């Protein structure tokens, strides 16, 4: 099994006027295909930052990232966007759904952006709604959903285009323990059955147990 995600000497510094905050100072690690990695560390340690960098949502100050062997920094906007909608499913800490789109439309966004005909993905939609248990809410807008439901929509959106990599920022942080467990079970299953690579940020050791590997983040560095 090959390396699917690789961080090489990753540095991220935020400049706020005179002060600069070095959030990541030379991070190196590699994730193999089919791994289920949990990133752990104290609040403010840079877990989210790292995840954004891996997903190409942010640019590192120095260092590089390779996804499926391709250097992110060398990709054009078009390729990078395509990568984001086909190869990566991103689950945000704060769900980030488009408020004026209903649940269905939110989930189908990556498909739509991929220029595919929605009709051909009707079954896929039903399947995924079943999976996250929101079949009866398809026309609701995000505002009409609870935090946990919104989180599940975000997960459904991340899974809909069948990406190889799932990057999830505290996917169960806002869920009750029962739903949380369900989601984690789901992750575990798609990791096992479909061989998807998952990188999740979590605070809970319990959640980390579902994974196959734990990476700690602190003081701008990582270790296992």
């Amino acid at each position, binding site marked *: 099994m090959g390396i699917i995600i690789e961080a090489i000497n990753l540095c991220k510094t935020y400049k706020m006027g005179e002060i600069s905050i070095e959030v990541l100072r030379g991070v190196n690690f590699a994730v193999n295909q089919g791994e289920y990695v949990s990133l752990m560390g104290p609040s403010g340690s840079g877990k989210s930052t790292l995840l954004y960098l891996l997903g190409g949502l942010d640019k590192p100050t120095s260092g590089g990232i390779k996804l499926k062997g391709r250097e992110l920094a060398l990709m054009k906007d078009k390729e990078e966007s395509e990568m984001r909608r086909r190869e990566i499913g991103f689950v945000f800490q704060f769900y980030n759904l488009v408020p004026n789109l209903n649940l269905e*439309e939110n989930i189908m966004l990556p498909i739509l952006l991929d220029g595919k005909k929605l009709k051909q993905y009707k079954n896929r939609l039903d399947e995924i709604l079943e999976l996250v248990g929101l079949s009866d809410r398809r026309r609701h807008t995000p505002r009409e959903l609870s935090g946990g439901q919104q989180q599940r929509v975000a997960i459904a959106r991340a899974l809909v285009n069948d990406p190889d990599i799932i990057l999830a920022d505290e996917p169960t942080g806002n869920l009750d323990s029962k739903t949380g467990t369900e989601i984690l079970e789901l992750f575990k299953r798609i990791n096992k059955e479909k061989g998807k690579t998952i990188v999740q940020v979590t605070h809970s050791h319990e959640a980390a147990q579902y994974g196959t590997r734990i990476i700690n983040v602190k003081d701008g560095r990582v270790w296992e």
Partner: protein
Amino acid sequence: MSIIFKFTLRNIKEKKLRTFLILLSIIMSSALFFASTAVSTTVEMIIMEQVRKYYGSADIIVTAGEQAKSWAISPNLLDNCPEGVKYAAGMIHGGGEYKEKGETVRIGIQGINLEDLDKMNPIILEQQHELIPFKGSKAIIGKGMAEEYGLKPGDPIGIYMNGLKKWFIVSGISQPIGPFLEDGENRYIVVPRETMAGLYGNKGKVSEIYVGLEDSSEQDMMVEKLSKAYPMYRVEPTISKAMIKSETQQISAMFLVIVVFVMILSAFIIYTSFKVIMAERLPVIGTFRSIGATKKMTNRVLMVESMVYGIIGGILGDILGISILKLMIMQITPIWESNIDFKAYYTIGQLIMGFCVGLVLSLISSFLPIRKVSKIQIRDIVLNSVEKKFKKKRWKTVLGILFLAIAVVVPRVTPDNTAIAVGIMCMFLLVPAVVMLVPHITNSFLKLFQFIYAEVFGNEGILAAQNLRDNKNNLNNIILLGMSISVLLMIYTLSQSIINDTVNYYKEVKYDITFWTWPANRSTENKLLSVDGVMDTYGEYFKYGETQVMGKNTEIKSILGVNKNKTLDYLILDIEGDAEKLVKELDEGRNIIITNIFKDEHGIKKGDYLKLKTEKGVFEYKVIGFIESNRSEGKFALIGERFLKSDMSVKEYSDIYIKTNKDSEEVVKNIQEKFKNRNPWVRSVEQSMKENMEANSKILGIFNGFGIMALVICVFGVFNNLIISFIDRKRSLAIMRSVGMNKRQTLKMIFVEAFTGGLIGGLTGIIIGLLLIMNVEKVIEALGGSIKEFIQISWISLAACVIVGIAITIAASVGPAFRSSKLDIIDAIKYE
């Protein structure tokens, strides 16, 4: 309190574009309002000033009566004058020719005493030469004439009067005021009264007495009073001030209708801007309230803010209004005056009104959003649980449809006497109807075109359509575009129709030249026929002036004497039925053709008899037919030429129409040459058309200008909305980027949205525009006009509506689109 003010001030400073937009709306509204109200004053003054050349400040003119044997009357007639008369100035009016530099100029001559002239029409002498005593062959000329012919005080000046050359001495040169005002038409000189009386062989007499009143507003009453006191004389108003007033006020009223639309547009912009302001300030207002500020305090700060906008906007609006007024006057002032320093007349009251419009507009438009905020509980503000949801309100839809239905149906069934008010009201009713229905129009459109969109624009099209659904900023844009484009379409269509009508009218005209001189009779006609290029002529007999219709309590204001052989060859008469047969019948006996308007108004049937009272007696005319015409407000009739001559004692032609067999311009010159000592009025049809079109296009230009200002406000509104929209949507855009939307797709989506907004806006504009035109049509009809036949809605103008709408939204989207491609995704989505 002061901290709240500071906070407000900082907000104003930060949101420069919005502040500008609010101010612009207020400024435009008060400026246009002021200009439209003041234009009537100015036009009134301009007309008065022009008329003053002939009548000065005189209100009434007294001349010899119809039965009198001579025109000469005693200047002392009104010496023991009735109360209310300020002065009575006798004058002998005459004319002559001045030949110089190979040209012959017609000169009007006023024989009047200097004291009288000073009372009636004062002049300002620039130079003089032994002027006093003003006797003998002394003459005062205007500066214009002096400059043109190099005349200096003391120079002799020869005027041909009745073929004899009479010499005067230039004894005074006056500034171009009073009789010496340059209006491009008549030129006057002033000579001593007795000199003129002598020249006309009536020493001690005058031809007219000009009466000035203590109170000009009593003009009509005094005319009546003097008529009774001097039954043997003719007493007439110089000009009817009441009529001028009502006419100029009509001009104002027309402008005001458009201004009200501009104001509604502004109110809408201020209202939406304040809603955004409220939304922005809400958290801070909540915080202030939670630490002890009362509702009153926060409300007052907000109202003060809106008042500041209103005051600044009102003042600037007045300043801009004066410039607009000047521009408008420049537009309507005839060409010959454009080199004269024209003045804008307005009253302090109008300035104050303009200012108040700005202030009140700002206060009213901001009041609703402010009140809404003050109703929200502090708890909700602080916890940020204010209902943000877009609620579809059923009653709004119902009301919108109701308004629309009223605006469409009611004008069609209203009787004519209330049609004006109802029509205008219905026009304004369209505004709330549009505001309430636009969400539905938009959603239906989006639903309808969803599939086409998917085909044409791909999935970005679907996304764009999804984004536009219930999007407030988009709806606001559509409303703004719809309203301003509709007003523009209405103005454009109407003015184009008027121009087309003019062109069509002249296209149909069957003659080439109109001619008039005094006297105009058969011998004039014969002389005309001898002019090279004149092929045929028709002398038209026309009776102007009221002829009473006995027993009907009404009068006919103008009557055309129809010549069975010529009239139909020269004039376009919309006679119903067999025109030729009816015209022949007119010649056969006392038969009359009346207008349809007159028929309907008085319930007259074919075969009825009308008793017409004239100076010669009462004559019975049989109604034999009807004509479609709104001449003299429908109080117009046709009778046989010979009856017009015999019964109404019309002796001279009112006009002579000429058909040519050569280039009409050349023939015009030939005629002018032949009649040069008779001061003829000759115009070719092309010339008349050109003059008419020029006069029209000037006024129409102002209307179009008003419409364009509405569009300007709209453009800024759309820009502002799209910027707000972008700020609102930053997060959504970032989310889409995070799930794989590339920059090109983002741009495409934004521009498809803009395109759609513009398209729907343009289409809405067309719909409202057509409804507006329909209502205006009704209003004009009620006013006695008819434009239905020549209203032409061109496909080009409709296409232009859509293109303008799309162009505006696309242009306004360039900024947001550019910013979207520089969007920092993480920054936009990180925090809830």
